[in-house]
């Protein structure tokens, strides 16, 4: 079972060309633009006092969620974390529902019961995260366990941060997935910080090195390149579906904003920010699109218009009815069974798979 760990960045170029069509590549850019635009809009709503509580975003990390979610099939199942808005979009969650979610409105995915990116739309196969990190690794492993037990050709995927790797649940999930050889993909989003804590205070050795000691491969990819993340995830999914077990993918990136809206991240050296700003994932994909002859201005305009319309819709929606605050603590026995749906995101799966 012992597979040696490789940290060499996956060389995506060849395989990517094989699996991503022209439209896929534009799709990757579109989702990243949409993610960044929605988060910028939410941030301005936050500043206007319209987003209660706190606000977290994934600025600069768009390639990680978009690249990985793009490689998943509708029948796969996802636990999406707090810097991974793009994954929700790929699964088909509407921008208006997301903005409603941030603002605690009735039309938000959780109907105002939870906030921020603490949601998952079960109709598109997603389980919403809890705050306790990285609890969802075990939930993802459990979904994969069910797939394996039933002999289904599906897999589960979850993201988690560098900081989360210090907690026991990381280990229990890695060990369980390894010993049972589960079809699960763990995407370690190494954005250099956990709140104010740099990775050197979190671990002595990069956790991607640990995969081998759990019996499955771990690899590092450029987390600012959506196509590299896509390709690593696609290959991991292929392994999973083939019955070859889990994969740990480290997506190396940088948290370009503070931990949350209140954090000016004065603890981050400005050179580090500058260095990473030059590697902006959207700039990179935009350049590819330009090279492909895409009218990127038009695409950006289209995305902006969609977000503006979503904001208008969200802002016009009501807050939840306080009379419902104690409803739905338990599911009635005679009610319909609710499970994670079968997925219906237009981009749940890249074009080559469908072919």
């Amino acid at each position, binding site marked *: 079972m012992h597979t040696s760990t490789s940290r060499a960045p996956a060389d995506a170029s060849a395989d990517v060309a094989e699996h991503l069509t022209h439209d896929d590549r534009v799709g990757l850019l579109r989702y990243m633009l949409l993610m960044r635009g929605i988060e910028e809009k939410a941030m301005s709503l936050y500043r206007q006092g319209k987003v209660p509580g706190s606000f977290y975003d994934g600025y600069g990390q768009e390639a990680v969620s978009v690249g990985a979610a793009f490689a998943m099939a509708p029948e796969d*199942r996802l636990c999406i974390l707090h810097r991974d808005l793009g994954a929700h979009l790929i699964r088909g969650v509407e921008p208006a529902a997301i903005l409603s979610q941030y603002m605690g409105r009735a039309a938000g*995915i*959780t109907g105002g*019961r*939870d906030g921020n990116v*603490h*949601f*998952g739309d*079960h109709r598109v196969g997603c*389980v*919403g995260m*809890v*705050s*306790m990190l990285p*609890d969802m*690794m*075990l*939930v*993802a*492993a*459990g*979904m*994969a*366990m*069910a*797939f394996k*037990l039933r002999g289904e050709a599906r897999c*589960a995927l979850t993201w988690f941060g560098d900081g989360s790797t210090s907690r*026991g*649940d990381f280990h*229990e*999930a890695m*060990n*369980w997935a390894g*010993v049972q050889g589960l079809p699960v993909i763990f995407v370690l989003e190494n954005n250099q910080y956990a709140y104010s804590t740099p990775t050197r205070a979190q671990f002595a050795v990069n956790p991607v090195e640990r995969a081998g000691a759990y019996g499955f491969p771990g690899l590092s990819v450029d987390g600012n390149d959506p196509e590299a993340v896509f390709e690593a995830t696609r290959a991991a999914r292929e392994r999973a579906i083939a019955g070859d077990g889990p994969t740990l993918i480290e997506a190396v990136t940088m948290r370009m904003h503070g931990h949350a809206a209140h954090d000016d991240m004065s603890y981050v050296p400005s050179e580090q920010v500058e260095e990473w700003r030059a590697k902006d994932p959207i700039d990179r994909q935009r350049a590819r699109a330009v090279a492909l002859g895409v009218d990127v201005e038009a695409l950006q305009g289209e995305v902006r218009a969609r977000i503006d319309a979503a904001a208008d819709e969200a802002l016009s929606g009501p807050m939840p009815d306080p009379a419902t605050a104690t409803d*739905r*603590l*338990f*599911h*009635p*026995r005679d*009610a319909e*069974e*609710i*499970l*994670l749906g079968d997925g219906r995101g237009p981009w749940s799966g890249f074009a080559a798979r469908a072919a």
Partner: protein
Amino acid sequence: MASMTYLQAISDGLRTAMRDDERVMVMGQDIGAFGGAFKVTDGFFEEFGADRVMDTPLAESAIIGTAVGAAVVGLRPVCEMQFSDFIACGFDQLVNVAGKMLYRQGLPVNITVRLPSGGGFSGGPFHSQNPEAWFMHAPGLKVVAPSTPEDAKGMLIAGIRDPNPVVYMEHKHLYRRVKGEVPDGAYETPFSARVAREGSDLAVITYGAMVHTALQATEDLDGASVMVLDLRSLVPLDEEAILAAVRTCSKVVIVDEANQTCAAGAQVAALIAERGFEDLDGPVTRVATPDVPIPFSPPLEQAVLPSVDRVKEACRELLAY
């Protein structure tokens, strides 16, 4: 109908649920070929195979967490903690992931967590706990605690079929000590209270192993007519049955094997003090374990666990009030 021990009834309930519904699987340490620390799953491995009778690594958080994952995609896992005490190691997944999922996002989590609990056999501080109150104080979990073989089977089946996370307290001290008639096949025992004995002078309200202590203590209490109410379910709590007992008897003794502070018994007492006040004819008396870890040595353990004598004394005192 067959006569079974409490332990056999749990096995029978589990086996019945697994035969009826192939989505039901069991997970836990040493539950496979070995049949479990208490042999609840003895023979299951042979009947259902390794996939549905899953030996897990020694990792309680993983047991609960993966069960949640498996449940939301359609399995119905029944998790066994080797002792209820070890749920402390899976606490977060149970309380934060399983308990809050439906309320937050409309996704029910159909898992059942079996917790072999309770003292009385020198299990010591880590094999004797009654942790049910922690879970009563964690919204989104149902908590049940049957006292008879018939209810043990019926509530386990009902718990497994219930779409919500159910914490199933099975008292180890009842495993082989209590026997009773158990209906054949599948049936469900509702999550509501049961009058274990009718009575009108005083009501003893209790659950789990203490039902037997209460029955024994009040069997012949100087001729008094003592009701024993077996709560059976702690969440939902059968408030109407409790208040009805107060109306009938006007005097109440609450017996709880758990440490007394913030125990299930405290909640019952608080309920009565608020909504049964006008029917009360005396202080709401509690018998529980004082707030210490459960000691190992028999004389110490017997000194802290509620005994037949302590219950008798509490009842006598209240009857004389």
